[in-house]
């Protein structure tokens, strides 16, 4: 059955009684629940008639079941118990409401009546919008990426003298200061440390595994080679697990001295090989150079923590 329309004539079983002055909608079901019949033949008040009394809905005419005499049984409308749908927010209420007959129209301006013209300007707007935003894309990306891939500093730093090392295969910590200048920040000294070891031939073999160790820069050029016959080995002071500073300790259970990281208990042999713990790779070796007077120089490097592969990051 169609929805009754506002202003439709209302007919009782016997005669016409008036017209639909208002329509009442149920807020939950979104269905028309009542029609309000007013106008002549009703005698004063508008009557609220439930939609179950409607027998049929035709164009502009609604037929009720009851006789006009029985119309008075329906309650008069208490307007203060209702609000219009413009005064309340009920989702999707008007989607299925078709109680208005006809539509209210507004003419399109003459200039907008040409469809090819509209589509052309629409597409042009999109094009120009893109072209305004696009030039920024590349500079902004480079702007944001500026500090992300800084070139490596491969300067040699003095850390001490080998005369501190008295015994073979014993780790000695060498502390040094590195000058760091980050972007616009004032230059500061950062405390760093490395572990030096005078390796016996066996340990040296463990470290180098028969090959000279090559260090390359980001472009792939050779920066330095640690010769495998030089007995001095230097390890980065940062544990390859998560970057904590580790220590040299004698462990009674093992009966020997090893490198021990206090953060997550990674244990390394003097050669840097992992004995126990979550370390993903052996201790990182650094380029080392010892002059005739026994002065030790290293290139300070840092490697990504937590990975099996050794990737230099600083």
């Amino acid at each position: 059955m169609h929805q009754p329309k506002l202003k439709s004539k209302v007919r009782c079983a016997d005669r016409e009684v008036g017209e639909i002055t208002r329509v009442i909608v149920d807020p939950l079901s979104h269905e028309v629940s009542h029609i309000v019949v007013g106008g002549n033949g009703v005698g004063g008040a508008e009557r609220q008639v439930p939609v179950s009394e409607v027998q049929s809905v035709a164009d502009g005419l609604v037929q009720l079941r009851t006789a006009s005499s029985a119309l008075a049984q329906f309650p008069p409308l208490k307007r203060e118990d209702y609000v219009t749908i413009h005064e309340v927010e009920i989702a999707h209420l008007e989607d299925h409401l078709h109680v208005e007959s006809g539509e209210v129209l507004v003419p399109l301006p003459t200039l907008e009546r040409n469809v090819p013209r509209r589509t052309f300007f629409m597409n042009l707007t999109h094009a120009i919008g893109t072209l305004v935003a696009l030039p920024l894309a590349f500079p902004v990306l480079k702007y944001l990426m500026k500090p992300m891939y800084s070139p490596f500093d491969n300067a040699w730093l003095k850390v001490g003298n080998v005369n501190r090392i008295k015994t073979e295969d014993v780790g000695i910590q060498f502390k040094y200061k590195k000058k760091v200048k980050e972007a616009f920040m004032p230059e500061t000294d950062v405390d760093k440390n490395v572990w030096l070891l005078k390796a016996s031939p066996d340990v040296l073999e463990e470290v180098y595994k028969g090959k000279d160790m090559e260090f390359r820069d980001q472009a792939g050029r050779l920066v330095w080679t640690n010769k495998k016959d030089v007995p001095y080995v230097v390890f980065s002071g940062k544990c390859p697990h998560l970057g904590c500073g580790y220590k040299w300790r004698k462990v009674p259970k093992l009966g020997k001295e090893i490198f021990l990281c206090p953060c997550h208990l990674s244990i390394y042999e003097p050669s840097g090989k992992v004995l126990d713990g979550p370390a993903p790779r052996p201790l990182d070796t650094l380029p080392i150079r010892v002059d005739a007077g026994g002065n030790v120089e290293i290139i300070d490097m840092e490697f990504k923590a937590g990975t099996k592969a050794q990737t230099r990051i600083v």
Partner: protein
Amino acid sequence: MSSQPNVLEKVIAFVDERVGLKTLQAKMLNEPVPGGSRWAYIFGSVLLFVFIMQAVTGILLMFYYVPSADHAYASTQYIIHEVDYGWFLLSYHFWGSSAMVVMVFAHMSQVFLWGAYKSPREMIWLVGLALFGIVMGFGFTGYLLPWDQRAYWATTVGVEIMDKTPIVGDFMARFLKGGATPGQMTLSRFFVIHVMILPAALMGLAGLHIFLFRKAGPAGPFRGTPEELKAKTDYFFPRQIWKDMVAMGAVFATICSLAFIEPVVLLEEATPDPGEYHPEPEWYFLFLFQLLRLKIFSGEFGQFLGAIAIPGAFMALLAALPFIDRSPERNIFKRPVALIGWIVVMATILIFTVSAIINREFLD
């Protein structure tokens, strides 16, 4: 007849003529809540309130805080020790962030249990998940700003975990850190993200979230005959707003109380070597932190699995939820899979959070 309209009434009539104020007001406020306003529905509004308080206290903190590696710690200490009631505003901001996470969990749980993510509310749910991510992002970025040991190391570990994302992980981590290692660039970036990018994103998405919610209408209770629902229906204003207000007041008082019970105390200033300090993230990330300690997640692949793959898969499941669960049934007691799933997830998070706290004593 009534007397001449007073000044206020004249002003209102002036604006109403030009803006349609009365109709606008009616549309915005007279939204019927089927089944009546409920205390269970307050969490969304409370979230908005907590966010506004965070914005206000955050702006106030910015009057004194300096986001530079050599001043961040000192300026934060200055706020705590010298500025009148600075300790209170900072502690409020700190505890407010915890409150926001709690409210997000409560709000998401309420929507989930009431089945209010189902059709036609799928988009509201998706936008909500994005908002959840933003709230977590706020917590993560804000945590670094005091630049003490806890802040610096929790961030370092957190970003390293993100690094494990395949393909884009390294780029993402370097982008956030502003380089290979955390430093001034990291602080600058986290500050911009925390203070500009995330607030703008949150406000935009929250606006969208509320708009979509209004368009779909409130879902209402999951049981009750139409007659019961109709008898109890009331309007958003003033009934639901009243309940929202009371809840906001209670949450406000709770945050203030926490600020009094445990005001923010910083550790020592950040140093490149963690020393004796054991890094730990904020409490709402602890469960993930503890999960990664399990042996099954050790090693590179294991860490990726535990930190990226599993949480990622869970979030993907949540996003797909309205499209997988097409049954119109919203009664939680008739959705055993949903109910048990929710209980299991909440219990797991709780167990792992508490485990992380217990584990502190076993860190040699």
